[in-house]
């Protein structure tokens, strides 16, 4: 068990190193003039000179990468020239709203996806299954911004049940969480359905049915418990899709998290913030995968042997 965990941990560290190589390359090697890119188009020659010195562009590449990595592990993600502040603290100050939204979105997607998947599995091949699976395809085929704006129009404008956007109370949280939840719920319902179908093939399910247990009890008591376990690990792998969705959803609802920060940086082409958010998101994904790897052997002990 310890060996397995150590291997997963080492793999995660290697991936993070790879992430830093990619972000270093994107920032300093691919752009023709990285200084102008980082300083912004309207920077003064003095600022550019300062950055050129700061980046040590006259030094050899390996040394520059080592310096970059050194700054990165200390949480130094560079400086935003549009906002005149360091990127690291800027992202850190925007994290709590995003984490709150993420938590609410996970609850929403499970509440939507799991019942839909269980229902579809129990009606397998029949009309109810087909309707549920077509709806799940529709939800994953809708861009986040279309879904968000539609919910906004319906529940905030036409019905006036919820605020048009902003941050501060539970009612502000509902629509952005529901937008992410509906989109993610589509995937969870498909995974839950196939997981449940797999479980319902087992002999112990046939035994439960044979002794006359009603079908809903078979599904909820014996089926759900076993079918749900693989889904838990999926939550950890979900972070990547979530990180993409949050940029759009926070913009639509005016939610002051890192997604909105990213959106503003895209509009002003603030490269240090764009790269900083991308780096932080990659760290989240690696962490999410690591957690999924840690949970996996608890669910299925055979995994430890690999």
């Amino acid at each position: 068990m310890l060996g397995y965990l150590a291997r997963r941990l080492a793999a995660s560290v290697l991936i993070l190193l790879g992430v830093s190589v990619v972000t270093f390359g994107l920032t300093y090697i691919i752009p023709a003039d990285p200084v102008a890119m980082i300083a912004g188009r309207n920077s003064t020659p003095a600022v550019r000179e300062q950055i050129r010195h700061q980046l040590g562009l006259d030094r050899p590449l390996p040394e520059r990468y080592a310096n970059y990595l050194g700054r990165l592990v200390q949480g130094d993600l560079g400086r935003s020239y549009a906002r005149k502040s360091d990127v690291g603290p800027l992202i850190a100050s925007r994290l709590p709203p995003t984490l709150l939204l993420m938590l609410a979105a996970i609850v929403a997607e499970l509440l939507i996806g799991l019942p839909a998947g269980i229902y579809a599995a129990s009606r397998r091949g029949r009309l109810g299954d087909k309707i549920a699976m077509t709806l799940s395809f529709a939800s994953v085929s809708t861009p986040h911004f279309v879904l968000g704006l539609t919910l906004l129009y319906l529940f905030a404008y036409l019905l006036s049940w919820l605020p048009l956007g902003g941050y501060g109370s539970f009612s502000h949280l509902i629509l952005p969480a529901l937008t992410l939840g509906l989109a993610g719920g589509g995937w969870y319902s498909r995974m839950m359905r196939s997981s449940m179908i797999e479980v319902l093939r087992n002999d112990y399910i046939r035994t439960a049915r044979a002794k006359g247990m009603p079908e809903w009890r078979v599904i909820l008591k014996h089926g759900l418990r076993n079918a749900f376990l693989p889904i838990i690990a999926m939550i950890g792998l979900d972070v990547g899709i979530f990180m993409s969705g949050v940029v759009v959803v926070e913009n639509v609802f005016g939610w002051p998290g890192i997604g909105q920060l990213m959106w503003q940086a895209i509009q002003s082409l603030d490269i240090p913030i764009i790269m900083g958010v991308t780096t932080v998101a990659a760290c989240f994904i690696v962490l999410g995968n690591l957690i999924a790897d840690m949970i996996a052997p608890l669910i299925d002990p055979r995994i430890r042997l690999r």
Partner: protein
Amino acid sequence: MIDFWNRFRRDRLAVYSLGVIALFVSAAILASTFAPYDPSEQFFDGLTLEGSPLPPSGRFWFGTDTNGRDQFSRLLYGAQTSLLIGIVANGIAVFIGAGLGLVAGYVRGLVGAAIMRFTDLMMAFPPLLLAIALAAILKPGLNIVILVIALVNWVQIARVIYAETVALSEREYIEAARAMGAGTGRILLRHLLPHLVPTVIVYATLGIATTVLLEATLSFLGRGVQPPTPAWGMMIFESQSYFLNAPWLVFIPGAAILILALSFNLVGDGLRDALDPTQRGRS
């Protein structure tokens, strides 16, 4: 082949979706014929006296946008952008992904390990954020958007093809081919690739849906194709501030994105079932 078509035909939804795709493709190809107006023409009577966009009417079927341009014409030309990027960018991604997956799955060793560790690394980046970062660094434009989407979207298919190639490589007929002196290139192209074609077709179709959505999101964020080229995501971005007064400016292009992506997803799903009947309804 006929057998396959008969299985596919039983999935009514997939057949209808194929029809919808054909409709979108013809609309895109014949946009200059069907479009009542030039997509960038700003009509002096295209706005109300207060300067608001016009709702759908006999003259402007889908209304006008915030610049007084005909929304229906822009929608047709937007279909060109969506489909061109969807098909070309995804085609490149499939080519890269299937190629790398095939080589990694058969060659293994150092080369295979290096390729697969690289796909692991790519999986650590959220596709949209990586696409935004790339699009922000490179100059925006149609070719760059295609390149950016291809660069972030090949990972999924590479992993699927890798797993299938590993399984196929264990089979005896591959060992037999090797024993008869077939080289690596011949085994890859003549003995492995033909068995992977169904998988490639399924993932290529599903991938177009992903690509259409990614392109729409990029252009909604202002990092996709640049004006004056019409793109559905950008049409929504431009009218976002007028949205509550002129909801058709969001709902019509939004519905177009949804219908196109959904059709490709349903056709891909139908193809998967038709090509592998034993897997029917499992995922």
